[in-house]
């Protein structure tokens, strides 16, 4: 279960950030923002790497003392970032993957909503619902 989920535009500005209410929201903004360094590095190294399987899932971006940050990039260069508590060791890699899949599917639907203007912040209720499903329930 995630403590923060973010969608980042092609141009690296946030389209959607949601974090558990209890903790300092700003901190997560910073965490997500800094994680983009790694994302960009991974993206740019496509093709350079010898055995590069060009997966959309970027895996663990970097571990901090208290969080694990995972990344995923769509072919449209939109990034998803999921932050989980590093104390939460139960979470398996493929669970993270499936979370990203869910996100991606829901995001695609948002993109297909004719009333949504790509590049604008995401306000979709449906998307919000999907995200809520993945967040650590608090209070």
């Amino acid at each position: 279960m995630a403590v923060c989920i973010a969608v980042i535009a092609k141009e690296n500005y946030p389209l959607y950030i949601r974090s558990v209410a209890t903790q300092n929201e700003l901190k997560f903004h910073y965490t997500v923002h800094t994680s983009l360094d790694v994302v960009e590095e991974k993206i740019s190294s496509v093709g350079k790497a010898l055995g590069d399987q060009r997966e959309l899932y970027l895996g663990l971006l970097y571990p901090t003392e208290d969080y694990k940050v995972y990344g995923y990039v769509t072919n449209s260069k939109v990034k998803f970032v999921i932050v989980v508590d590093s104390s939460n060791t139960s979470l398996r890699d493929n669970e993270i993957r499936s979370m990203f899949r869910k996100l991606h599917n829901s995001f695609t639907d948002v993109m297909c909503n004719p009333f949504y203007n790509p590049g604008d912040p995401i306000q979709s209720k449906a998307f919000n619902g999907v995200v809520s499903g993945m967040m650590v329930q608090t209070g």
Partner: protein
Amino acid sequence: MAHEAPFQLLHSELIHYICKTADGADSENGRSVTKLENMGFRVGQGLIERLTKDTARFKDELDVMKFICKDFWTCVFKKQIDNLRTNHQGIYVLQDNKFLLLCHMSAGKQYLEHAPKYLAFTCGLVRGALSNMGVKSIVTAEVSVMPACKFQVMIQKL
């Protein structure tokens, strides 16, 4: 949902509507063609997003182009692009020898003038798809003999 009748009819309604409303001030159909193009753009964005959901990340521009010519075209127009050429300097020419949206128009010179209207949406479609893949471009189409047509994609380097 076996076939594309509804889409084709919708498409021609689209053109009919746009060109009808375009009369008066901006009757020169340049403006209405732009409108069609923009609608196509938005649709292209959405389609490619769905279409590339399960594919591996693209290596480069050419990789994207190929995808447009094969998968994308197949899904939208039921066939692949017949011929893709490039000068390796950001210009690609996609040729479709039997373009779906022109098939129902009887070949013949008198229709050639209407061709732009029937291609604008598709130009937008391609441009939108590419732009969503991070490839900024200008897409133009030309018809010499119906129902064959060429789409020229000019990549805009940033």
